[in-house]
C-alpha cells in the first residue's frame, strides 16, 4: 500500500505443481531471449515510462488537482509528464480525472481508442474508480466498465502527492512489462 492507498494488483502466474524453480513467465522468456534483447527491452520500457505524456481528460474536481499537480508546487514534469497533450493521438497515458456521466461514456471510449499503443489508464479519484459518492442514474460506476484501467487512485480528490504516487506506480508497472514488438 503506497501513499493514499494506491494499489496495483499483481498476481504472479505460477505453474506450481511440478518441481520447477519458481519463475514467472517473463523471467523464463527473458532467459530464453538472451542478454542483449533483455537490455534492449529494458531500454525501451525505460524510455516509455520516463516520458509518459498524459492526454488532457480532466472532467471535474480531480482535474483541478491534476492541474495543481502539473503546476508550480507539485511539479509532475519531474516524473516525465512534461506536457499534457490535447490530442489523444500524441499521448501515452489517459488520466481519467473526474466523474464520468452516461453521456460522456462513449466519448471516453472514443478518446481511449484514438490513443496509439502502448497506452495506459490511470483512474484518478473515487468517482472514476467506482462511481464515488454518486451511486445514481447519471454516473457510470467506475470507468473500468468502459476502458481497462492500470492504476486506481482513491481520494476525493486525491492529493497531488497521491497522483504522483500513482504515476510512479504506473512507471514501476511499465518497467515490469515487456514491449510487444520485441517479444518472440
Amino acid at each position, binding site marked *: *500500500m503506497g501513499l493514499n492507498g494506491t*494499489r*496495483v*494488483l*499483481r*498476481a*504472479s*502466474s*505460477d505453474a*506450481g505443481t511440478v518441481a520447477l524453480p519458481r519463475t514467472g513467465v517473463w523471467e523464463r522468456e527473458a532467459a530464453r531471449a538472451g542478454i542483449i534483447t533483455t537490455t534492449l527491452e529494458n531500454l525501451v520500457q525505460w524510455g516509455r515510462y520516463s516520458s509518459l505524456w498524459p492526454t488532457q481528460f480532466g472532467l471535474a474536481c480531480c482535474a483541478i488537482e491534476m492541474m495543481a499537480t502539473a503546476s508550480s508546487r507539485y511539479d509532475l514534469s519531474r516524473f516525465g509528464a512534461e506536457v499534457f497533450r490535447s490530442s489523444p493521438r500524441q499521448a501515452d497515458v489517459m488520466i481519467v480525472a473526474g466523474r464520468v456521466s*452516461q*453521456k460522456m461514456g462513449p466519448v471516453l471510449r472514443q478518446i481511449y481508442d484514438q490513443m496509439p499503443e502502448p497506452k495506459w489508464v490511470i483512474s484518478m479519484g473515487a468517482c472514476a474508480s467506482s*462511481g464515488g459518492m*454518486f*451511486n*445514481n*442514474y*447519471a*454516473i457510470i*460506476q467506475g470507468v473500468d466498465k468502459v476502458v481497462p484501467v492500470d492504476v486506481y487512485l482513491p481520494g476525493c480528490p486525491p492529493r497531488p502527492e497521491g497522483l504522483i504516487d500513482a504515476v510512479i506506480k504506473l512507471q514501476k508497472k511499465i518497467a515490469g512489462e515487456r514491449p510487444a514488438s520485441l517479444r518472440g
Partner: protein
Amino acid sequence: MGLSPDAARPVSGTRAANLLTRELPDSVARRSVAESEEITWVQRESLVQAATLLRDHPDAAYTMPVFVTAVDWPDREPEEPRYDVVYELRSLQHNDTCRLIVQVPDDDPRVPSLESVWAGMDWHERECYDLLGIVFEGHHDLRRILLPLDWEGHPLRKDYVSFGEPIAFTHNLEWALPEAERPRDLPGETR
C-alpha cells in the same frame, strides 16, 4: 439566538403580487407568504400575459429570469394538480425577487413557454422538460439538455428510481456482487 431573522427581513415578491392583483386579477389564483417570500399562484392560461406585464411595467421591471423548475407532488392528485412549475424572477431596478407558481396536472403537464419574454428562459425550460417532463408550448426547440437525447424517463419525478449499483457488504455478497468480482483467496502475491 434571539430574534428570528425572518422577522427583520422585508417580504420579497409583494410588488409583483400587488401588480398582478391590480392589473390582471383573473390571472392570480391565490397568494401566500412564508419565510419572508410572497408567492403568486398564477393561472396557466394567463402566464405569458402576466410575465410580459411583470417585465415591462415600470413598477415591477422584473428583467432577469432567475430559474424555472417544477416540484413533483404525486400524492396531491386528484385534489390538486401534481406539478408546481416555479418561476423566480428578479428586478434589479427595485431589488426585488418574486416567485410565480403554475400548477399543472399529471395528465396534461403543459405550460406556455416564456422564451419570448426572457431569452434566458430557453435553457431553463429545456432543463425542466428534461428532468421533469413539463412540456413548454411554443418553445422553439424543446430537446433534452442535460441527459442524452435518447434517455427514457424524467429523473426528478418521484416515481423514477435512481440507482447506480448495489453496494456490496459482507452480508449481501450473493446478490450485490457478481461471482467474478467477489473477494477470494488468490494464490501468490497480491499487493
